């Protein structure tokens, strides 16, 4: 299941609310994770470089530098999984956060079990692939979590890797958004299609020549997505 159980996973919590930060530490530490808390946006990058987290839990409403920009800064530097904490259920905010590079989001107030499940899902590495997978000119290597296209390495986040591996492992099969949420995001978000849509768009922009006319992953209207069988 997991490829590095030897050391404790490290979580960087970025939240301006002291009590919530502390409470998050208590809950995550009780789950066997190492936690560091950063309370302002402008100190995040320093903490990030120093702490080298395996996952970032990021509150969107931050003093100093706002959450959206912090998210972009981290994503520019690293493919580390980012989960947004948001007090708003406004769709536009959530979509903006996802487009800024967050892998997942969780709306306040949330349950401890829900939080832990989301964090675990992002820390877990899928073991759908045991051997390198060749799909047309795309090669997925599960050991190094690397993807190359026509020999060129592609910069995919772990989530994008999982999403691609899930689709490519069964070419031709149509995956509904619900089943992708279940398989890739782990914790079930009922009917939350924007998570899939935003990440699918970004994944396509990285692997397709023309994201408007995809040749690798096709949208099946009203159903979901499907990997197009590569031409021999």
């Amino acid at each position, binding site marked *: 299941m997991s490829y590095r159980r030897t050391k404790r996973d490290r979580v960087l919590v970025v939240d301006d609310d002291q009590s919530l930060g502390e409470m998050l530490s208590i*809950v995550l530490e009780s789950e066997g994770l190492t936690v560091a808390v950063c309370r302002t946006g402008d100190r995040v990058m320093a903490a990030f470089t120093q702490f080298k987290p395996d996952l970032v839990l990021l509150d969107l409403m931050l003093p100093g530098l706002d959450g959206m920009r912090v998210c972009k800064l981290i994503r520019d530097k690293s493919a580390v999984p980012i989960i947004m904490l948001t007090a708003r259920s406004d769709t536009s905010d959530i979509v903006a956060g996802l487009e800024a590079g967050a892998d997942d989001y969780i709306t*306040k*107030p949330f349950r401890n079990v829900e939080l832990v499940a989301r964090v675990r899902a992002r820390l877990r590495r899928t073991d759908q692939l045991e051997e390198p997978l060749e799909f047309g000119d795309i090669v997925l290597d599960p050991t190094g979590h690397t993807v190359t296209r026509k020999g060129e390495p592609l910069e995919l986040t772990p989530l994008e890797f999982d999403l691609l591996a899930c689709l490519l492992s069964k070419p031709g099969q149509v995956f509904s958004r619900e089943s992708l949420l279940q398989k890739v995001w782990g914790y079930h978000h009922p009917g939350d299609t924007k998570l899939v849509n935003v990440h699918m768009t970004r994944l396509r922009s990285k692997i397709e020549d023309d994201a408007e006319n995809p040749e690798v992953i096709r949208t099946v209207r009203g159903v979901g997505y499907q990997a197009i069988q590569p031409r021999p």
Partner: protein
Amino acid sequence: MPSISRLWRRSIQARVVTSTILLSTLVIMLTGWWLLRDVADGLVDSRRTAAISEARSGFDYAKAQLDAAVESETTTQSQALTQMVDSLTRSRGAKRTYELVLQGPLVTNDGEVPIRSSAAIDPDSLPSDLASTVRSETGVYWRYTDLGLTGKTTNDPAVVVGSQLRAPGSGDTYALFYLFSLTDQQDTLDLVRRALLLGGLAMVVMVGGVAWLVSRQVLDPVRLARRIAERYASGNLEQRMHVSGEDDIARLSTSFNQMAASLQSQIRRLENLSRLQQRFVSDVSHELRTPLTTVQMASAVLYDARDRLDPQAARSAELLKVELDRFESLLSDLLDLSRFDAGAAQLELDTVDLARVARMAAEDPVLTRAGIEVRLVGVDRPAMVEADIRRIDRIVRNLLANAVKYSGSKIIQISVAENDESASLSVMDFGVGLSGDENLRVFDRFWRADPARTQGGTGLGLAISREDAALHGGTLQAWGRPGEGSEFILTIPKAGGAAKHPALVSVYA
């Protein structure tokens, strides 16, 4: 025909023009008839006077001729009379304007009255009453008649003037009739009639045109006002009417513009208010949610550790958790309602199959836990609508929770049906039912059928569900009968449809 009656109902202009044309036709017809009668009377009267005086001079001449003829021999009398008729008809100008009939001598031995005439005149042309008057009385008499000539099919109007002539010698009496044709007068009259008819027609057309122009002048601004009012109705309040002059139309435009401006400012004020409220809700939401999250997490940690706490602390941890959950749902319901009130609620539309929603809802563990048997009706056929799946799920969850908590029924039936316009989902129970106006009051905020029975819940579920349904342009209605059960029917319109006619009708309706 329906298009004409529609035009009549809808167009003031059509009504104005039509009634103007009808009324002016009537007036012109009356005037024309009066004019024509006057002209005819004048023409005939003057012709008659002329005819009578012409006839008189003829009579005098005839008398003189007769006097001369009678002095000669009897055998030449008839010749003389024929000559007289001929000369009378020949005299006075080149063209003869009359015909002559001479009867007599009126008393002869064989009893037959010889008749001489200037042309082949139909004997019916002489009115018999005039003939008898002339024979028995002296003097000049006249009548109108129809002059018929044998060989001609049509009769001409004519005036006939007759007089008795007495031959001084023999004492024989004759009746002489002048028949003056009125054809010229008839022709003139026909001409006048034709001219009047054409003139009248032209007049009606022109009056119609004038009515059309004038009504347009008045109606154009009204139509403009209507178009602008329609634009206001569709939410475009920027339009203004053009004001020129100081007449009624200008005043209408001014009032119209004032109305629009006042509407616009009111709406702006309300929009501002709504924006403020939305902002407030959003702020409250954010400010409350962060501490609530912390408290929730802490409570969960305490709850998980309750085995290690002393009994009072353990129970407190339990109560803390239960009441925090209630607090959270209350907060989230209140925020939802305030979002509805502020008009800030938005739909995330997707294609939703109500049958699938029903099948999924039937598997809710809450139902199994409460030992409730769920019956599904009509869920094997898809019932597709454009809807926000989360809101639809929430409505159905609320309806089921309501049935489980308050009906006391052990059976719940979920039915789905659709028609061309909409699709409906109903949740029916066979429990305590609803009495009186409860089917309306269940949707009131914080309303409970039995205030003593507060089984958790916020008392806002059905109010929110109804708002959710309304946000889709749909309806949520409750029906019920005390002791028998109740039914809640959710109807969501299809794309381009309306929820006026739900696909399901309650058995309690």
